[in-house]
């Protein structure tokens, strides 16, 4: 891992200042709506980091660099790889090197913003890093974690997506994918018809046109809400979709924007091509950044806990991604449920769910990769619940009419609009304004801005990232902690001894997942008995120590393979002949090393 010298970023300051000037001179545009920059406008990045704001790509990198500068002894930062547009993907590694090499500690990997528009997933990573570093030595629990574990944090995976989400006009859901051109509409041209920011306000909103034959009318209580007409009712409006024109003259509007290659469908386990699911690249690890992160992870086999952050919905998701992925063993499920249920309590409103069963099938998704090929317990955090944008007195129920995937909930829409009007002073919604469209003529443009819908307003951000980071810390606490004791040393005869050891795990996670044990992903933990004047005559796992039942290993008794269960222990017996000093060593890929030295 290389340390990076950080240059002073004066260009950035100048850029931000320019930007603020540009905003204040733009007529008729409310600055809060204009771009993501508005939420990230403060050029000053100070440690501890502030979380009443969002960081754009460059600020996010600068924040990581500043964190490292402030805590050089506990952190390292590095460029993991580069994106399609040559932006750097940065990782920050946090641990106390004085307590051992990072590769010998249970690794906790956390990333976010693999979908470019899901920006608060980057903030939660920054918050976690900030918390670990600024509270080290102040808070006992955090100090213990930084001493015992290593945290590998990549706050922004899809750096191009984050960049374009902040800097380009968007809906809340655009710029999700990678910048790999795909001919979405199969016309031989690639990425030729993006949505267009017709009114230049930095958002891709909706277009609607007055039309007595339209399928929609305005809600009489709030004319911003569009209601589908019922049979016999007179319509007033037609919805024309996202802001835009037919850029390529093929009769379709906005049908071939960036990508679409979904970075969360391009990992190396249970991958499937585009005809099975949209968003697959051509093969696993399509995307230079994804591939670099894949290598980064495989080089860190000590990682046993993985968190990947997204928005939205308020969910903590576990695998498998598809039904055919197979349910976890009882042992692994117990771990997942323990972590998931505690996380549900730490973050009120969040639900602990199973990807394929409760959402939809995902092939080649990131956590399937880490579950299966990295051998880590892996959770996805879908941050932010739109329901948290409440507007109602204490104790009253949320208003709502019938709702479904394809049905509208006008009552909830109205509550959200009141939240927008009176709690965030109109910053999330763009009022409908008339516009002269080259094809449709006089239309209106308006609707939710790009910073709405999937992101907490900055005033709610700190609360959410703190709770979510606390769930990460809870799971980090549950990484295996192994103790090895010699609990019996008995001389049988002459120089023949019976040695009995116990490996005890005081945490919820076993020393390797059952899933990787079953698939044979990598060798089990190894116990070796060595000494220059000794011979291991027999050895094996103790099944019942009161009845001396031991399953002796027929060959090479001096090498034993094991897994130490969560909140549990295993015991081994060795019949050793000889004399002098000897060692019993335990080595686990995920749970570190232990050693006993003794004399016969």
């Amino acid at each position, binding site marked *: 891992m290389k340390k990076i010298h950080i240059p002073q970023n004066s260009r950035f300051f100048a850029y931000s200042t320019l930007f603020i000037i540009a905003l204040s001179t733009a007529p008729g545009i409310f600055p809060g709506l204009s771009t993501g920059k508005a939420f990230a406008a403060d050029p000053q990045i100070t440690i501890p980091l502030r979380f009443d704001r969002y960081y754009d790509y460059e600020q996010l990198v600068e924040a990581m660099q500043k964190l490292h500068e402030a805590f050089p002894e506990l952190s390292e930062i590095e460029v993991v790889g580069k994106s399609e547009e040559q932006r750097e993907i940065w990782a920050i590694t946090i641990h106390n090197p004085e307590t051992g090499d990072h590769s010998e500690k249970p690794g906790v990997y956390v990333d976010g913003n693999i979908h470019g528009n899901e920006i608060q997933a980057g903030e939660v990573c920054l918050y976690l890093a900030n918390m670990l570093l600024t509270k080290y030595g102040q808070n006992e629990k955090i100090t213990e974690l930084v001493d015992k574990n290593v945290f590998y944090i990549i706050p922004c995976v899809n750096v191009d997506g984050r960049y374009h989400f902040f800097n380009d006009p968007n809906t809340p859901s655009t710029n999700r994918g990678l910048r790999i051109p795909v001919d979405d509409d199969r016309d031989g041209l690639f990425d030729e018809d993006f949505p267009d920011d017709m009114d230049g306000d930095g958002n891709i909103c909706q277009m609607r046109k007055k039309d007595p034959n339209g399928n929609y009318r305005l809600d009489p209580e709030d004319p911003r809400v569009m209601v589908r007409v019922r049979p016999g009712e007179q319509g007033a409006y037609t919805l024309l979709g996202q802001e835009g024109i037919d850029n390529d003259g093929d009769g379709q509007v906005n049908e071939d924007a960036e990508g679409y290659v979904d970075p969360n469908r391009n990992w190396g386990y249970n991958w499937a*091509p585009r*005809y*099975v699911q*949209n968003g697959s690249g051509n093969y696993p690890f399509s995307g230079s950044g994804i591939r670099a992160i894949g290598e980064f992870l*495989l080089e860190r086999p000590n990682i046993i806990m993985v968190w990947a952050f997204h928005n939205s919905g308020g969910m903590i998701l576990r695998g498998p991604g598809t039904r055919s992925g197979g349910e976890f063993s009882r042992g692994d499920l117990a771990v997942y449920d323990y972590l998931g249920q505690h996380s549900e309590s730490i973050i009120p409103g969040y639900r602990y769910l199973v990807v394929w069963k409760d959402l939809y099938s995902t092939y080649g998704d990131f956590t399937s990769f880490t579950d299966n090929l990295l051998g880590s317990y892996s959770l996805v955090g879908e941050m932010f619940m739109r329901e948290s944008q409440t507007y109602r007195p204490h104790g009253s129920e949320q208003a709502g009419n019938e709702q479904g995937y394809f049905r509208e909930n006008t009552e909830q829409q109205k509550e959200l609009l009141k939240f927008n009007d009176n709690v965030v002073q109109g910053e999330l919604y763009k009022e409908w304004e008339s516009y002269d469209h080259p094809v449709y003529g006089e239309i209106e443009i308006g609707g939710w801005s790009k910073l709405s819908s999937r992101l907490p307003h900055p005033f709610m951000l700190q609360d959410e990232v703190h709770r979510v980071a606390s769930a990460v810390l809870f799971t980090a606490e549950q990484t295996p902690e192994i103790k090895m004791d010699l609990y019996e040393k008995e001389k049988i005869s002459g120089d023949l001894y019976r040695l009995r050891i116990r490996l005890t795990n005081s945490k919820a996670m076993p020393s390797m997942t059952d899933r990787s044990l079953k698939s044979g992903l*990598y060798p089990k933990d190894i116990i070796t008995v060595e000494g220059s004047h000794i011979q291991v005559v027999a050895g094996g796992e103790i099944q019942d120590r009161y009845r001396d039942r031991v399953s002796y290993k*027929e060959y090479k008794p001096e090498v034993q393979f094991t897994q130490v269960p969560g909140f549990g222990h295993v015991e081994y017996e060795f019949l050793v002949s000889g004399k002098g000093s000897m060692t019993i060593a335990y080595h686990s890929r995920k749970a570190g090393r232990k050693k006993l030295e003794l004399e016969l």
Partner: protein
Amino acid sequence: MKNIFGHLVPVVYLFISVLFMSGFTPVRAQQDKYPDPAQINRSLRALQRSNPAFSELNLLTTSPGNNEVLLLEIGKEVASGEKTNPAILVVGNLEGNRPLASLAALSLAERILDDPGTYANRTWYIVPAGNPDALYSYFRDPLFENTRNASPHNDDRDEATDEDGFNDLNGDGYITKMRIIHPEGEWIQVKDDPRLMRRADPVKGEQGIYRIFDEGLDADGDGKYNEDGPGGTNVNINFPHLFKAFDPESGLYPGSSPEGRAILEFAYVHPEIAMTFAFGATNFCHTPPRGGRRGEVDLTRIEIPERYAEMFGADPGRTYSMEEIIALVQPMVPEGVTVDESMVAGFLGLGAAINPMEEDLAFYNLLSEDYRKYLEEKNAKEERFDPDRARDGSFELWCYYHLGVPVFSMDLWSVPKPAREEKEGSGLSPEQLEKMTSEEFLALGEEKIAAFMEEACVPEQFSAKEVMASVKGGQTDPAQLAAMVKQMPKKGKDGEDANPEEKANPKEKAMLDYSDKALGGKGFVQWEKFEHPQLGELEIGGFVPFTATTPPCSITDSILDLHLPWIFKLSERLPSLGIYETRVTPKGAGVYQLEVWVENASFLPFPTAMGRRNRQPAPAVVLLEGKGYTLLSGYPRTPVADLKGNSRKKLTWLVRAEKKTDILVSLTSKSAGSDQTTVNIGG
């Protein structure tokens, strides 16, 4: 004169230096032994140097064993980045254990360069040695068959990697087998030929005698023999279609081997690839890709889970076809969104295709018949064992299912099948039997019924006589018999017995026969006693590695001369798009109807049905260009997603033109050719 001399010197010098540097001798002349990866690469370099205008050499990657994987491009567009000619990607020996496959690819390259007609309007991309690390095993002592590249892999998941490989204990240069008499022995000698072994069948009262191991030591003292030899990934099963995770040879994920990854990457940046060809263990020319596999879902009978069923107004208790589901979902999605198969497959989690599309099997079957006829015409018809099936995760399956192009392959040679005694068959099928009356059945006579029973594997304890008696007595009837017969285990395709334990494996028998008759016994090492340091007294013997797959190099000329020309014949069947006809019909008031028929004048479809399903091959596009007209209907750019073999499709525009003008109509495709024509309109 001076000028000529001035030119000549460098040319001669170049020529000499090429010979010197490459050590090149033409492929065909060097038939005493197969070329190793280094020789293959030297030959490729030499071929390229002697044809610099029409060939280019690309370094695809370097293998974990530090061998270069080279790709030779041949065609008239070698210098240009954008290719207009359709291309054929030929990959040899991805399994690495088929020296003949590499030789064939090399020979194909030479034949192409010898005949400019073969590349007049085609580009060829040829990778003769896709798995050079494994191929080297054929040239090393001791000889053993290896399909794995040189990346390390801890096969037995112990504390060491690649620590326990084979050992040539008897020093004969081959890794064969060890057989040892053991209390838990499972094997016995075959009665007809005690050189061959078969498993004892305890149910029949047989007691196993021998245990069999590969030749070697237990190098790491863990009680297992040769369980973790050097080597990692078999490149040919490192591809993404039905990739088999956690197989010790498949690699960690699809494309995890540099060789596999390089081919994946190459294929997708060359959309002009219209067909692929593999030299290896399969033979799609002879035996089309296998269908009839059972998968997770049948696309004609899809269940809709309750939570979706309610939403769509579907019945969770019944099943739906893909078309029905699309019709159900379409009205539910926002305007402008078209529901297609992959969208449905996505939210219902239907997974990957596992059987070739019917339409594609049709052309595969026809071409396979043509191939057999071609061989017959060359008097080369011989009974052969079925070629290997394409393995899950293989290059062949990936080409078909993911690239969406027709893929063909050849195994080129197999051990000849010994001639079978032809018995007169009964000519009866269970289906015929089903419809017979008892009288018709009895009229067949004892001999025919006995023959039928034997074919149907009816156990010997039932005689034709007894069966006839019970039919006569009314205890059974032909329909019942037919039903019983259908339940019987069937004979294998190669005439293997349903219970192969009873006799020697027929392929092994054929190999032994071949070794005895054609190789003077050199294909088999006689069992001989050996004092094994760990196992004690045992015997070492068995087939010489490569006997089943690799003919003596001396006969490869005739094999290649026979089979390789078929590839040129296949290449002529590639889809070929063109503009067949244009028609302009005046509609009055300066309005015209323009009709353009585009055609695929060749046999193979554009693209394959699978290519259509996975939307991978780039579409063809018809462009209208010109001035002085406006389109009243239709667009200047019209994609043509598919054109089946020997078919035409009409495209129509309404055009308004006040004055006479020309419209340039052009058809372009990445992989099936281009065409253009000018139509006069207006005036």
